[in-house]
Protein backbone atom coordinates (compact mmCIF):
# COMPACT_ATOMS: atom_id res chain seq x y z
CA UNK A 1 0.00 0.00 0.00
CA UNK A 2 2.74 2.44 0.97
CA UNK A 3 6.15 2.24 -0.64
CA UNK A 4 9.00 4.29 0.78
CA UNK A 5 12.05 4.28 -1.44
CA UNK A 6 15.33 5.90 -0.44
CA UNK A 7 13.70 8.97 1.15
CA UNK A 8 15.96 11.81 2.32
CA UNK A 9 15.02 15.00 4.12
CA UNK A 10 17.38 17.92 4.59
CA UNK A 11 16.92 21.49 5.81
CA UNK A 12 19.90 23.34 4.38
CA UNK A 13 22.96 21.59 5.82
CA UNK A 14 20.94 19.79 8.41
CA UNK A 15 20.29 16.22 7.32
CA UNK A 16 17.29 14.90 9.21
CA UNK A 17 16.52 11.65 7.42
CA UNK A 18 18.60 9.69 4.96
CA UNK A 19 18.02 6.59 2.89
CA UNK A 20 14.75 5.57 4.51
CA UNK A 21 13.19 2.63 2.69
CA UNK A 22 10.32 0.38 3.67
CA UNK A 23 6.99 -0.84 2.47
CA UNK A 24 3.81 -1.11 4.46
CA UNK A 25 0.80 -3.34 3.82
CA UNK A 26 -2.80 -2.36 4.41
CA UNK A 27 -3.87 -3.01 8.00
CA UNK A 28 -0.45 -2.80 9.65
CA UNK A 29 0.01 -0.90 12.92
CA UNK A 30 3.42 0.73 12.68
CA UNK A 31 4.89 2.39 15.75
CA UNK A 32 7.74 4.85 15.29
CA UNK A 33 10.19 5.34 18.16
CA UNK A 34 13.51 7.07 18.57
CA UNK A 35 15.26 9.84 20.47
CA UNK A 36 13.99 13.43 20.29
CA UNK A 37 14.92 15.12 17.04
CA UNK A 38 15.59 11.84 15.24
CA UNK A 39 13.16 12.68 12.47
CA UNK A 40 10.28 10.38 13.33
CA UNK A 41 7.85 13.27 13.50
CA UNK A 42 9.25 14.68 10.27
CA UNK A 43 8.58 11.32 8.67
CA UNK A 44 4.99 11.39 9.94
CA UNK A 45 4.59 14.88 8.48
CA UNK A 46 5.67 13.54 5.10
CA UNK A 47 2.95 10.92 5.27
CA UNK A 48 0.55 13.70 6.27
CA UNK A 49 1.66 15.92 3.40
CA UNK A 50 2.83 18.99 5.34
CA UNK A 51 6.46 18.10 4.53
CA UNK A 52 7.82 16.69 1.28
CA UNK A 53 10.89 14.45 0.88
CA UNK A 54 14.00 16.25 -0.37
CA UNK A 55 14.70 13.21 -2.53
CA UNK A 56 13.44 9.71 -2.94
CA UNK A 57 9.84 8.65 -3.36
CA UNK A 58 6.93 8.13 -1.03
CA UNK A 59 4.14 6.31 -2.82
CA UNK A 60 0.56 5.57 -1.76
CA UNK A 61 -0.94 2.92 -4.03
CA UNK A 62 1.71 3.71 -6.63
CA UNK A 63 0.99 7.45 -6.63
CA UNK A 64 3.14 10.05 -4.84
CA UNK A 65 1.55 11.12 -1.54
CA UNK A 66 -0.22 14.47 -2.12
CA UNK A 67 1.79 17.44 -0.83
CA UNK A 68 -1.07 18.76 1.30
CA UNK A 69 -3.25 17.04 3.88
CA UNK A 70 -6.50 15.46 2.67
CA UNK A 71 -9.23 13.14 3.85
CA UNK A 72 -7.41 9.89 2.98
CA UNK A 73 -5.10 10.35 5.97
CA UNK A 74 -6.58 11.23 9.35
CA UNK A 75 -4.47 12.65 12.16
CA UNK A 76 -4.53 12.99 15.92
CA UNK A 77 -1.93 15.32 17.45
CA UNK A 78 -0.79 15.41 21.05
CA UNK A 79 -2.96 18.49 21.55
CA UNK A 80 -5.00 21.14 19.69
CA UNK A 81 -6.60 18.44 17.56
CA UNK A 82 -10.19 19.49 18.21
CA UNK A 83 -12.00 22.74 17.50
CA UNK A 84 -12.43 24.61 20.81
CA UNK A 85 -15.46 26.62 19.63
CA UNK A 86 -17.57 23.58 18.75
CA UNK A 87 -19.36 21.18 21.07
CA UNK A 88 -18.34 17.53 21.06
CA UNK A 89 -21.13 16.62 18.66
CA UNK A 90 -20.45 19.60 16.40
CA UNK A 91 -16.77 18.69 16.27
CA UNK A 92 -17.60 15.27 14.87
CA UNK A 93 -20.35 16.57 12.59
CA UNK A 94 -17.91 19.07 11.10
CA UNK A 95 -15.89 16.12 9.84
CA UNK A 96 -18.80 15.10 7.64
CA UNK A 97 -19.65 18.67 6.67
CA UNK A 98 -16.14 19.39 5.46
CA UNK A 99 -16.54 16.66 2.85
CA UNK A 100 -19.30 18.71 1.19
CA UNK A 101 -18.35 21.20 -1.47
CA UNK A 102 -19.27 24.81 -0.70
CA UNK A 103 -18.26 27.67 1.52
CA UNK A 104 -19.56 26.70 4.95
CA UNK A 105 -19.75 22.91 4.81
CA UNK A 106 -22.95 22.88 6.84
CA UNK A 107 -25.26 19.90 6.58
CA UNK A 108 -29.00 20.09 6.01
CA UNK A 109 -31.99 17.77 6.03
CA UNK A 110 -31.44 14.11 5.30
CA UNK A 111 -27.66 14.36 5.13
CA UNK A 112 -27.61 16.04 8.51
CA UNK A 113 -29.83 13.38 10.06
CA UNK A 114 -27.62 10.66 8.62
CA UNK A 115 -24.45 12.36 9.85
CA UNK A 116 -26.00 12.95 13.27
CA UNK A 117 -26.71 9.22 13.58
CA UNK A 118 -23.20 8.25 12.51
CA UNK A 119 -21.60 10.81 14.79
CA UNK A 120 -23.58 9.69 17.82
CA UNK A 121 -22.80 6.04 17.12
CA UNK A 122 -19.09 6.79 16.89
CA UNK A 123 -19.14 8.91 20.05
CA UNK A 124 -20.84 6.02 21.84
CA UNK A 125 -18.04 3.78 20.60
CA UNK A 126 -15.35 6.02 22.11
CA UNK A 127 -17.34 6.55 25.31
CA UNK A 128 -18.34 10.20 24.93
CA UNK A 129 -22.11 9.69 24.67
CA UNK A 130 -22.67 11.67 27.88
CA UNK A 131 -20.72 14.70 26.75
CA UNK A 132 -22.33 15.50 23.40
CA UNK A 133 -23.05 19.14 24.20
CA UNK A 134 -19.90 19.96 26.11
CA UNK A 135 -17.13 22.15 24.81
CA UNK A 136 -13.58 20.75 24.63
CA UNK A 137 -12.36 22.95 27.51
CA UNK A 138 -14.87 21.18 29.76
CA UNK A 139 -13.38 17.77 28.94
CA UNK A 140 -10.41 15.99 30.51
CA UNK A 141 -7.29 15.40 28.42
CA UNK A 142 -8.25 11.79 27.77
CA UNK A 143 -11.76 12.70 26.68
CA UNK A 144 -10.38 15.33 24.33
CA UNK A 145 -8.18 12.73 22.67
CA UNK A 146 -11.15 10.37 22.38
CA UNK A 147 -13.00 13.16 20.67
CA UNK A 148 -10.06 13.82 18.34
CA UNK A 149 -9.98 10.14 17.40
CA UNK A 150 -13.73 9.99 16.79
CA UNK A 151 -13.50 13.10 14.64
CA UNK A 152 -10.67 11.61 12.60
CA UNK A 153 -12.49 8.31 12.09
CA UNK A 154 -15.99 9.50 11.14
CA UNK A 155 -15.29 9.45 7.45
CA UNK A 156 -13.21 6.31 7.41
CA UNK A 157 -9.76 7.42 6.36
CA UNK A 158 -7.63 4.50 5.18
CA UNK A 159 -4.63 5.71 7.12
CA UNK A 160 -4.62 7.08 10.66
CA UNK A 161 -1.58 9.04 11.81
CA UNK A 162 -1.03 9.44 15.54
CA UNK A 163 1.58 11.99 16.68
CA UNK A 164 2.32 11.14 20.32
CA UNK A 165 -1.41 11.14 21.00
CA UNK A 166 -1.17 9.96 24.60
CA UNK A 167 2.04 11.72 25.59
CA UNK A 168 0.23 14.16 27.88
CA UNK A 169 -2.07 11.65 29.58
CA UNK A 170 -1.90 9.90 32.95
CA UNK A 171 -0.78 6.25 32.87
CA UNK A 172 -4.18 4.87 33.88
CA UNK A 173 -6.01 6.80 31.21
CA UNK A 174 -3.32 5.83 28.74
CA UNK A 175 -4.10 2.15 29.24
CA UNK A 176 -7.78 2.81 28.48
CA UNK A 177 -6.80 4.71 25.36
CA UNK A 178 -4.61 1.80 24.23
CA UNK A 179 -7.58 -0.55 24.42
CA UNK A 180 -9.69 1.91 22.50
CA UNK A 181 -7.13 2.40 19.74
CA UNK A 182 -6.57 -1.33 19.30
CA UNK A 183 -10.31 -1.94 19.13
CA UNK A 184 -10.90 0.82 16.58
CA UNK A 185 -7.92 -0.29 14.50
CA UNK A 186 -9.34 -3.79 14.13
CA UNK A 187 -12.91 -2.66 13.70
CA UNK A 188 -12.24 -0.02 11.05
CA UNK A 189 -9.41 -1.98 9.34
CA UNK A 190 -7.08 0.99 9.53
CA UNK A 191 -3.46 1.32 8.64
CA UNK A 192 -1.94 3.16 11.60
CA UNK A 193 1.33 5.03 11.99
CA UNK A 194 1.99 6.13 15.54
CA UNK A 195 4.89 8.21 16.81
CA UNK A 196 5.66 7.67 20.47
CA UNK A 197 8.39 8.27 23.04
CA UNK A 198 7.34 5.25 24.99
CA UNK A 199 8.88 1.93 23.89
CA UNK A 200 6.50 -0.03 26.05
CA UNK A 201 3.58 1.58 24.33
CA UNK A 202 5.19 0.94 20.95
CA UNK A 203 5.58 -2.76 21.71
CA UNK A 204 2.13 -3.09 23.17
CA UNK A 205 0.24 -1.45 20.32
CA UNK A 206 2.19 -2.04 17.14
CA UNK A 207 2.37 -5.03 14.85
CA UNK A 208 5.52 -3.51 13.50
CA UNK A 209 8.08 -1.29 15.15
CA UNK A 210 10.45 1.14 13.52
CA UNK A 211 13.35 2.61 15.43
CA UNK A 212 14.75 5.82 13.98
CA UNK A 213 18.41 6.45 14.75
CA UNK A 214 21.61 7.73 13.21
CA UNK A 215 23.95 5.08 11.86
CA UNK A 216 26.85 7.41 11.30
CA UNK A 217 28.02 10.11 13.68
CA UNK A 218 30.44 12.94 13.10
CA UNK A 219 31.22 14.47 16.50
CA UNK A 220 32.38 17.73 14.87
CA UNK A 221 29.26 18.09 12.75
CA UNK A 222 26.31 16.40 14.40
CA UNK A 223 23.99 17.57 11.66
CA UNK A 224 25.96 16.06 8.80
CA UNK A 225 24.31 12.65 8.93
CA UNK A 226 20.63 11.91 9.20
CA UNK A 227 18.66 9.19 10.89
CA UNK A 228 17.15 6.19 9.21
CA UNK A 229 15.16 3.14 10.24
CA UNK A 230 17.69 1.10 12.20
CA UNK A 231 15.28 -1.59 13.35
CA UNK A 232 12.24 -2.67 11.41
CA UNK A 233 10.69 -5.55 13.22
CA UNK A 234 7.53 -7.46 13.37
CA UNK A 235 6.64 -7.14 17.04
CA UNK A 236 5.24 -10.64 17.26
CA UNK A 237 8.46 -12.26 16.05
CA UNK A 238 11.24 -10.57 18.03
CA UNK A 239 14.08 -12.90 19.06
CA UNK A 240 15.65 -12.77 22.51
CA UNK A 241 19.06 -11.66 21.23
CA UNK A 242 17.68 -8.91 19.08
CA UNK A 243 15.53 -7.77 21.93
CA UNK A 244 18.40 -7.46 24.37
CA UNK A 245 20.56 -5.67 21.83
CA UNK A 246 17.83 -3.15 21.23
CA UNK A 247 17.47 -2.53 24.90
CA UNK A 248 21.18 -1.73 25.11
CA UNK A 249 21.13 0.47 22.02
CA UNK A 250 18.23 2.55 23.18
CA UNK A 251 19.22 2.72 26.82
CA UNK A 252 15.57 2.61 27.78
CA UNK A 253 13.78 -0.06 29.79
CA UNK A 254 11.41 -2.07 27.65
CA UNK A 255 8.90 -4.63 28.79
CA UNK A 256 10.13 -8.12 29.69
CA UNK A 257 10.45 -10.38 26.70
CA UNK A 258 7.64 -12.63 27.84
CA UNK A 259 5.16 -9.77 27.69
CA UNK A 260 6.06 -8.94 24.13
CA UNK A 261 5.59 -12.33 22.57
Amino acid at each position, binding site marked *: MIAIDNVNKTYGDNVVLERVSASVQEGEFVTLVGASGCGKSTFLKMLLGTEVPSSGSLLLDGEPIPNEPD*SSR*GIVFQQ*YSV*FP*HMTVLANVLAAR*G*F*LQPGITGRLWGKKRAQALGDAKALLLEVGLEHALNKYPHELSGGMRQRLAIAQ*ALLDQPRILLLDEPFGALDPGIRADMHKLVLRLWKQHRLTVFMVTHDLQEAFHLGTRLWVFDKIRHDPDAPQAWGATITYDLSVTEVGVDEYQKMQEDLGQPIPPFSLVS
Partner: protein
Amino acid sequence: MKRLINAAPSRVSAMALGILPFVLLLIIYSMGSDARLEVNPNDKLLPSFAQMGDAIQRMAFEPSKRTGEYLFWQDTLSSLTRLGMGMLIAASLGLVIGLSTGALPLARAGFSPLVTVISLVPPLALLPILFIVFGLGEVSKVALIAIGITPAIAREIQRRTEEIPSEQIVKAQTLGANTAQIFSRVLLPQLLPRLIDSVRLTMGSGWLFLISAEAIASTDGLGYRIFLVRRYMSMDVILPYVFWITLLAFLLDLLLRLANKRLFPWYQ
Protein backbone atom coordinates in the same frame (compact mmCIF):
# COMPACT_ATOMS: atom_id res chain seq x y z
CA MET B 1 1.68 39.97 60.77
CA LYS B 2 1.84 38.79 57.18
CA ARG B 3 4.21 40.30 54.69
CA LEU B 4 2.61 43.17 52.79
CA ILE B 5 2.87 41.19 49.57
CA ASN B 6 0.65 38.46 51.05
CA ALA B 7 -1.92 40.69 52.75
CA ALA B 8 -5.16 40.54 50.76
CA PRO B 9 -8.35 42.44 51.65
CA SER B 10 -11.66 40.65 52.26
CA ARG B 11 -14.49 41.21 49.80
CA VAL B 12 -16.12 43.92 51.84
CA SER B 13 -12.93 45.77 52.66
CA ALA B 14 -11.83 45.52 49.02
CA MET B 15 -15.04 47.25 48.01
CA ALA B 16 -14.62 49.89 50.70
CA LEU B 17 -11.03 50.49 49.60
CA GLY B 18 -12.24 50.84 46.00
CA ILE B 19 -14.92 53.41 46.86
CA LEU B 20 -12.73 55.41 49.23
CA PRO B 21 -10.74 57.37 46.59
CA PHE B 22 -13.98 58.42 44.84
CA VAL B 23 -15.45 59.70 48.11
CA LEU B 24 -12.23 61.53 48.93
CA LEU B 25 -12.17 63.17 45.49
CA LEU B 26 -15.78 64.32 45.92
CA ILE B 27 -15.06 65.74 49.36
CA ILE B 28 -11.95 67.57 48.21
CA TYR B 29 -13.82 68.95 45.21
CA SER B 30 -16.78 70.22 47.20
CA MET B 31 -14.52 71.78 49.83
CA GLY B 32 -12.57 73.56 47.11
CA SER B 33 -15.74 74.61 45.34
CA ASP B 34 -17.31 75.96 48.57
CA ALA B 35 -14.17 77.88 49.46
CA ARG B 36 -13.97 79.56 46.07
CA LEU B 37 -17.69 80.35 45.86
CA GLU B 38 -17.61 81.91 49.32
CA VAL B 39 -15.00 84.40 48.18
CA ASN B 40 -16.65 85.03 44.82
CA PRO B 41 -20.19 83.75 44.17
CA ASN B 42 -19.66 84.23 40.42
CA ASP B 43 -16.57 82.02 40.30
CA LYS B 44 -16.79 79.64 37.31
CA LEU B 45 -13.81 77.37 37.87
CA LEU B 46 -15.22 74.97 40.47
CA PRO B 47 -19.04 75.09 40.20
CA SER B 48 -21.10 73.58 43.00
CA PHE B 49 -23.07 70.38 42.44
CA ALA B 50 -26.26 72.45 42.43
CA GLN B 51 -24.93 74.64 39.64
CA MET B 52 -23.99 71.56 37.61
CA GLY B 53 -27.46 70.15 38.24
CA ASP B 54 -29.01 73.38 36.93
CA ALA B 55 -26.81 73.24 33.83
CA ILE B 56 -27.81 69.66 33.07
CA GLN B 57 -31.47 70.55 33.72
CA ARG B 58 -31.10 73.32 31.15
CA MET B 59 -29.19 71.19 28.59
CA ALA B 60 -31.08 67.94 28.90
CA PHE B 61 -34.64 68.71 29.91
CA GLU B 62 -35.42 72.12 28.42
CA PRO B 63 -35.54 72.70 24.66
CA SER B 64 -32.83 75.02 23.39
CA LYS B 65 -34.15 78.58 22.88
CA ARG B 66 -32.37 78.84 19.53
CA THR B 67 -33.16 75.48 17.87
CA GLY B 68 -35.82 73.89 20.06
CA GLU B 69 -33.68 70.75 20.45
CA TYR B 70 -32.74 69.04 23.69
CA LEU B 71 -29.04 69.68 23.26
CA PHE B 72 -27.68 67.10 25.69
CA TRP B 73 -29.54 64.21 24.04
CA GLN B 74 -28.92 65.56 20.55
CA ASP B 75 -25.18 65.72 21.31
CA THR B 76 -25.20 62.21 22.75
CA LEU B 77 -27.05 60.77 19.77
CA SER B 78 -24.76 62.44 17.21
CA SER B 79 -21.59 61.38 18.99
CA LEU B 80 -22.68 57.80 19.55
CA THR B 81 -23.77 57.50 15.91
CA ARG B 82 -20.37 58.71 14.68
CA LEU B 83 -18.47 56.53 17.12
CA GLY B 84 -20.62 53.50 16.36
CA MET B 85 -20.29 53.85 12.60
CA GLY B 86 -16.57 54.48 12.80
CA MET B 87 -15.97 51.50 15.07
CA LEU B 88 -18.22 49.27 12.98
CA ILE B 89 -16.35 50.11 9.78
CA ALA B 90 -13.01 49.70 11.53
CA ALA B 91 -14.01 46.34 13.01
CA SER B 92 -15.27 44.97 9.68
CA LEU B 93 -12.26 46.16 7.69
CA GLY B 94 -9.87 45.11 10.43
CA LEU B 95 -11.41 41.64 10.57
CA VAL B 96 -11.21 41.12 6.81
CA ILE B 97 -7.65 42.41 6.55
CA GLY B 98 -6.38 40.72 9.69
CA LEU B 99 -8.01 37.39 8.89
CA SER B 100 -6.61 37.26 5.38
CA THR B 101 -3.11 38.44 6.29
CA GLY B 102 -3.11 36.10 9.28
CA ALA B 103 -4.27 33.00 7.43
CA LEU B 104 -3.11 33.37 3.83
CA PRO B 105 0.65 33.60 3.27
CA LEU B 106 -0.02 35.28 -0.09
CA ALA B 107 -2.17 38.03 1.47
CA ARG B 108 0.39 38.50 4.24
CA ALA B 109 3.16 39.08 1.71
CA GLY B 110 0.98 41.57 -0.17
CA PHE B 111 -0.68 43.58 2.59
CA SER B 112 1.26 43.27 5.81
CA PRO B 113 3.91 45.91 5.03
CA LEU B 114 1.21 48.34 3.89
CA VAL B 115 -0.83 47.86 7.07
CA THR B 116 2.30 48.34 9.18
CA VAL B 117 3.15 51.61 7.44
CA ILE B 118 -0.42 52.93 7.63
CA SER B 119 -0.59 52.09 11.32
CA LEU B 120 2.43 54.35 11.87
CA VAL B 121 0.74 57.43 10.34
CA PRO B 122 -0.71 59.56 13.16
CA PRO B 123 -4.43 59.64 12.23
CA LEU B 124 -4.94 63.19 13.48
CA ALA B 125 -2.37 64.37 10.96
CA LEU B 126 -4.70 63.03 8.29
CA LEU B 127 -7.68 65.01 9.60
CA PRO B 128 -7.05 68.09 7.40
CA ILE B 129 -6.85 65.81 4.37
CA LEU B 130 -10.14 64.18 5.35
CA PHE B 131 -11.79 67.58 5.78
CA ILE B 132 -10.54 68.63 2.34
CA VAL B 133 -11.60 65.39 0.64
CA PHE B 134 -14.89 64.66 2.44
CA GLY B 135 -15.88 68.16 3.53
CA LEU B 136 -16.76 69.13 7.09
CA GLY B 137 -19.78 66.80 7.37
CA GLU B 138 -20.29 63.45 9.04
CA VAL B 139 -18.19 61.45 6.59
CA SER B 140 -14.87 62.96 7.58
CA LYS B 141 -15.48 62.34 11.30
CA VAL B 142 -16.49 58.74 10.77
CA ALA B 143 -13.56 58.29 8.38
CA LEU B 144 -11.11 59.61 10.98
CA ILE B 145 -12.26 57.04 13.52
CA ALA B 146 -12.24 54.25 10.92
CA ILE B 147 -8.78 55.15 9.63
CA GLY B 148 -7.40 55.56 13.11
CA ILE B 149 -8.72 52.25 14.45
CA THR B 150 -8.63 49.89 11.47
CA PRO B 151 -4.84 49.26 11.44
CA ALA B 152 -4.81 48.51 15.16
CA ILE B 153 -7.65 46.01 14.84
CA ALA B 154 -6.21 44.49 11.67
CA ARG B 155 -2.83 43.87 13.28
CA GLU B 156 -4.42 42.48 16.42
CA ILE B 157 -6.63 40.10 14.42
CA GLN B 158 -3.66 39.05 12.30
CA ARG B 159 -1.77 38.14 15.48
CA ARG B 160 -4.75 36.30 16.91
CA THR B 161 -5.22 34.38 13.65
CA GLU B 162 -1.58 33.33 13.66
CA GLU B 163 -2.01 32.17 17.26
CA ILE B 164 -4.64 29.61 16.32
CA PRO B 165 -2.69 26.32 16.46
CA SER B 166 -1.73 25.09 13.00
CA GLU B 167 -2.80 21.64 14.17
CA GLN B 168 -6.41 22.78 13.83
CA ILE B 169 -5.88 23.91 10.25
CA VAL B 170 -4.15 20.64 9.36
CA LYS B 171 -6.86 18.65 11.11
CA ALA B 172 -9.60 20.44 9.16
CA GLN B 173 -7.79 19.59 5.94
CA THR B 174 -7.53 15.92 6.87
CA LEU B 175 -11.29 16.04 7.34
CA GLY B 176 -11.61 17.30 3.78
CA ALA B 177 -12.14 21.04 4.35
CA ASN B 178 -11.38 23.53 1.59
CA THR B 179 -9.96 27.00 2.22
CA ALA B 180 -13.38 28.70 2.38
CA GLN B 181 -14.64 26.15 4.92
CA ILE B 182 -11.55 26.59 7.07
CA PHE B 183 -12.22 30.34 7.06
CA SER B 184 -15.93 30.14 7.77
CA ARG B 185 -15.99 27.24 10.23
CA VAL B 186 -12.60 27.18 11.96
CA LEU B 187 -11.05 30.66 11.87
CA LEU B 188 -13.90 33.18 11.75
CA PRO B 189 -15.93 31.79 14.68
CA GLN B 190 -12.83 31.70 16.84
CA LEU B 191 -11.88 35.27 15.91
CA LEU B 192 -15.23 36.95 16.61
CA PRO B 193 -14.79 37.08 20.40
CA ARG B 194 -11.22 38.27 19.89
CA LEU B 195 -12.56 40.96 17.57
CA ILE B 196 -14.92 42.16 20.30
CA ASP B 197 -11.98 42.22 22.71
CA SER B 198 -9.95 44.32 20.35
CA VAL B 199 -12.88 46.71 19.77
CA ARG B 200 -13.03 47.14 23.55
CA LEU B 201 -9.34 47.91 23.68
CA THR B 202 -9.41 50.42 20.82
CA MET B 203 -12.61 52.15 21.94
CA GLY B 204 -10.54 54.63 23.98
CA SER B 205 -8.74 55.82 20.86
CA GLY B 206 -12.11 55.92 19.13
CA TRP B 207 -13.38 58.46 21.67
CA LEU B 208 -10.15 60.45 21.26
CA PHE B 209 -10.60 60.72 17.49
CA LEU B 210 -14.29 61.49 17.85
CA ILE B 211 -13.84 64.34 20.30
CA SER B 212 -10.92 65.78 18.33
CA ALA B 213 -12.90 65.79 15.09
CA GLU B 214 -15.94 67.30 16.79
CA ALA B 215 -13.84 69.95 18.49
CA ILE B 216 -12.34 71.09 15.21
CA ALA B 217 -15.37 71.14 12.91
CA SER B 218 -18.87 70.25 13.92
CA THR B 219 -22.26 71.70 14.82
CA ASP B 220 -23.21 69.21 17.51
CA GLY B 221 -21.83 66.34 19.53
CA LEU B 222 -20.43 65.87 23.00
CA GLY B 223 -16.93 66.96 21.98
CA TYR B 224 -18.26 69.97 20.08
CA ARG B 225 -20.27 71.08 23.11
CA ILE B 226 -17.49 71.02 25.67
CA PHE B 227 -15.15 72.89 23.34
CA LEU B 228 -17.91 75.41 22.54
CA VAL B 229 -18.77 76.26 26.14
CA ARG B 230 -15.07 76.44 27.03
CA ARG B 231 -15.25 79.96 25.55
CA TYR B 232 -17.57 80.99 28.40
CA MET B 233 -15.62 78.96 30.96
CA SER B 234 -18.80 76.98 31.63
CA MET B 235 -17.29 74.39 33.89
CA ASP B 236 -20.84 73.64 35.11
CA VAL B 237 -21.52 72.13 31.65
CA ILE B 238 -18.08 70.71 30.90
CA LEU B 239 -17.72 68.65 34.07
CA PRO B 240 -21.10 66.83 33.77
CA TYR B 241 -20.37 66.22 30.07
CA VAL B 242 -16.99 64.67 30.85
CA PHE B 243 -18.65 62.54 33.49
CA TRP B 244 -21.34 61.50 30.98
CA ILE B 245 -18.72 60.58 28.34
CA THR B 246 -16.91 58.47 30.91
CA LEU B 247 -20.13 56.74 31.88
CA LEU B 248 -20.98 56.03 28.22
CA ALA B 249 -17.50 54.59 27.64
CA PHE B 250 -17.90 52.38 30.69
CA LEU B 251 -21.34 51.17 29.59
CA LEU B 252 -20.20 50.40 26.05
CA ASP B 253 -17.30 48.38 27.42
CA LEU B 254 -19.58 46.52 29.82
CA LEU B 255 -22.03 45.77 27.00
CA LEU B 256 -19.31 44.30 24.78
CA ARG B 257 -17.88 42.28 27.64
CA LEU B 258 -21.27 40.78 28.47
CA ALA B 259 -21.97 40.11 24.79
CA ASN B 260 -18.70 38.19 24.54
CA LYS B 261 -19.53 36.10 27.57
CA ARG B 262 -23.04 35.42 26.38
CA LEU B 263 -22.37 34.70 22.71
CA PHE B 264 -19.17 32.68 23.05
CA PRO B 265 -19.40 30.38 26.08
CA TRP B 266 -16.32 28.44 24.95
CA TYR B 267 -14.14 31.53 24.97
CA GLN B 268 -12.13 32.23 28.10
